[in-house]
C-alpha cells in the first residue's frame, strides 16, 4: 500500500537525516583522533603514515599533564563536597514541605540560570578581594557552586521515587533522622548519587568560561591551558591533548550509561 511505503520512506529519510546530524555533532571530536596521529606537524588527516609522537610530546614537553592533575583534583574535591552538601539539602527539601522551602530550593538551583561568564566575572571580583584569586581553594569554591544545583536536582528527583514511609518506619524502629538518612536513604539513593557524581565531575573537569577568570599560572586547569595554547598555535599536540581529555569524559559517560542510563539523567 502506498501508505505503508510512504511511511517507510519518511522513516528512512528521517533516520538518514538524523544520522547525518549525529555524525556532524560528533565530527569535531572524531576528527581530532586521526589528526593527533599525523606524523607531520600539520592539522590534517595523516597522509604519510601515523605517529604517536604528539602524545609523547604532551607528556614530555607541555604543561598539560600538570593542568590535567589540577583539573582532576579540583573536580574530585568539588564534586565530593557538592555531593555531601547537595544531597543532604535535597533530602531536607524533599521531605519537609514547609512554606518557604520552595524558595530555598529555587535559590539552590539558581546558579544554573546564570551565564557562567557573568558568574566568572563576579567571582573574579569577590575572590580578589578575599585574597583567593588564582588559588586552588578559590577555584574549588566556585566549582562547588556550579555543581551543587545539579546535585540538588538529580538527588531531589531520585528521592521522589523513595517512599517517605521507609524513613518513617526507620524512625519508628528507633533510628534518629541522621541514622535514617545514612542507613536507609543513602543506600537507596546510590544510583542518583552516582549520576550526580559523574555529571558533576564532567561539569567541573570541562569547565572553562568561568574558570578562565579565576586561574593563574600556578593553578591552570586543563581546558584553560589547552585554550591558551591553541590561541598561539593549533598543531597535532593540541589535538592529542584534546583527545586525551575526550577519553576521560567518555569514560565518565559510559559509566553513567552503565549504572543509570543516560536518558534518565538527562531528563532531570
Amino acid at each position, binding site marked *: 500500500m502506498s501508505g505503508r511505503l510512504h511511511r517507510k520512506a519518511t522513516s528512512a529519510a528521517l533516520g538518514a537525516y538524523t544520522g547525518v546530524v549525529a555524525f556532524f555533532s560528533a565530527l569535531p571530536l572524531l576528527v581530532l583522533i586521526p589528526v593527533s596521529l599525523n606524523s607531520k606537524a600539520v592539522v590534517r588527516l595523516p597522509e604519510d603514515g601515523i605517529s604517536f609522537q604528539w602524545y609523547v610530546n604532551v607528556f614530555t614537553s607541555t604543561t598539560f599533564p600538570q593542568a590535567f592533575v589540577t583539573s582532576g583534583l579540583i573536580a574530585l574535591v568539588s564534586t565530593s563536597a557538592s555531593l555531601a552538601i547537595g544531597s543532604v539539602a535535597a533530602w531536607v527539601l524533599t521531605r519537609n514541605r514547609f512554606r518557604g522551602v520552595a524558595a530555598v530550593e529555587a535559590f539552590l538551583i539558581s546558579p544554573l540560570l546564570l551565564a557562567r561568564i557573568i558568574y566568572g566575572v563576579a567571582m573574579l571580583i569577590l575572590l580578589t578581594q578575599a585574597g583567593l584569586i588564582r588559588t586552588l581553594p578559590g577555584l574549588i569554591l566556585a566549582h562547588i557552586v556550579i555543581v551543587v544545583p545539579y546535585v540538588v536536582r538529580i538527588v531531589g528527583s531520585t528521592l521522589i521515587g523513595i*517512599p517517605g*514511609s*521507609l524513613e*518513617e*518506619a*526507620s*524512625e*519508628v*524502629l*528507633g*533510628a*534518629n533522622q541522621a*541514622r535514617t538518612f545514612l*542507613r*536507609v536513604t543513602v*543506600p*537507596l539513593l546510590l544510583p542518583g548519587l552516582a549520576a550526580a557524581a559523574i555529571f558533576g565531575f564532567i561539569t567541573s573537569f570541562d569547565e572553562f568560561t568561568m574558570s578562565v577568570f579565576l586561574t593563574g599560572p600556578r593553578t591552570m586547569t586543563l581546558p584553560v591551558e589547552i585554550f591558551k595554547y591553541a590561541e598561539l598555535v593549533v598543531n597535532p599536540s593540541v589535538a592529542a591533548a584534546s583527545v586525551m581529555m575526550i577519553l576521560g569524559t567518555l569514560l565518565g559517560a559510559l559509566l553513567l550509561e552503565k549504572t543509570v542510563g543516560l536518558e534518565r539523567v538527562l531528563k532531570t
Partner: protein
Amino acid sequence: MQPVSIELRNVTKVFGGNVKAVDDVSLTLEPGHLVTLLGPSGSGKTTILRAIAGFEEITSGEILVAGNRIENVPTHRRQLGMVAQDYALFPHMTVHDNLRFGITTSRRARRETARISPVEMNNRIGSMLELVGLDGYGSRRPQQLSGGQKQRVALARALVTEPRVLLLDEPFAALDKHLREQLQLEVRRVQQQVGITTVFVTHDQGEALSMSDRIAVLRDGKVEHYGTPSEVYDHPLTSFVAGFVGRTNILHGEVAGVRNGLVEVGLEGAQIDVSSDQSGLSVGDRISVLVRPEQITIENAGVPAGSENRILGTILKSVYFGDRFDVTVQTSAGVVVANIMRRSATYHGLEPGESVWIAFHPSAIALAPGS
C-alpha cells in the same frame, strides 16, 4: 513487657487553613486492648495514629503512653511498633536484616549497651519469624515476597523491637478478600499472644467488628461512639454510627409516650414500642428509630399480629444474593430494607407488589436523636 495504656486528652489537630482534622478527641485505651479507629476518609483516624507515632504535631491536647506525656518526645524514642499501609520494608535488606535493623536501632534508642551475641540475635529474629508463620524466610528480599508475606514481615519487624504500643495503619488495604480474612485472624492472634496495646486504623467495619476489643467510630474529627463491637453494632449512639457500622434502616418519628422500659414512638402511619431505658426523653421529642435489616421479618398480610411491632407495606423489589434476599418494602413510615436468610432451598422469595407486614422486636431497635 507489661502492656501499657494510651490516653488522648482533648487532642486537636488543625491543618493550615483552619481544617480541623482532629477535633477535641479524648480516648483511653486499656492495656493490652486492640482498639480500632474506624471511620470514612477524612474522619481523622489516620491523623490520630500519626500523631501517636509522632509524624504529626498536634495543635493542642495531650497524648500519654503509660501515663507519660509523649507529645514532645521524638518519634524514635517513643518505643512504638508500626505497620504502614505499604509495609515499608527496606528493599535493600533481606527479611533477616530488616528485623535486625529494628533490634539494633531500638536498642540504641533505649540506650541498651549490653552486647547481643550473633547467636542470640538470630534466635530472636528466628522466633519472631516463627510467630508470624514465616519460619525460614530470613534470607528472602522484600521484592520476592507476596503481599501477605510482606505484611507479616512488617508485623514481625514491628514486634521484634519489643515496643510498648503497636500501630497498624490500614495494613490489609492492599490485599484480596480471602487473604485479608486470613491475616486479620493471624494479626489478632499474635496481638493477643504478645498482649500489646494496639491502635488499628481502618475504614472496613467488618474488620473492626471481628478484631477489636473496642471501637472508636470517628466522623469529621470527632468520636461519635467508643465502645465494644457489640455496643457499637447493637446500640449505636448516633444514626451515623448505625449507618456506618453495618446497614441500618432509619425511620423518623416523634415520642408519643414513655412507660416503664418502653418508649412509644409515633411513626408516619404506625406506632411502635421500643425497649429502651433512655431517660431524658419527653413526649414530642423528634427521634430516629434504627433497625438492622437482619432484625426484620416479613409476614404475609393475612397472618395475625404477635408481640412484635408491625408496619404494613408493599414489596418494591427483592434482590437475590445466594444465601439471602434483600427485600425492599415501601411502608407509610418510609422505605425499609430487610435481610431475609433463606431457610431452605425451596424458599422462593417474595414478589414485588405483594402486601406484607414488616415486623421487628421492640428490643431490636436503637434510638438516636431525631433530625
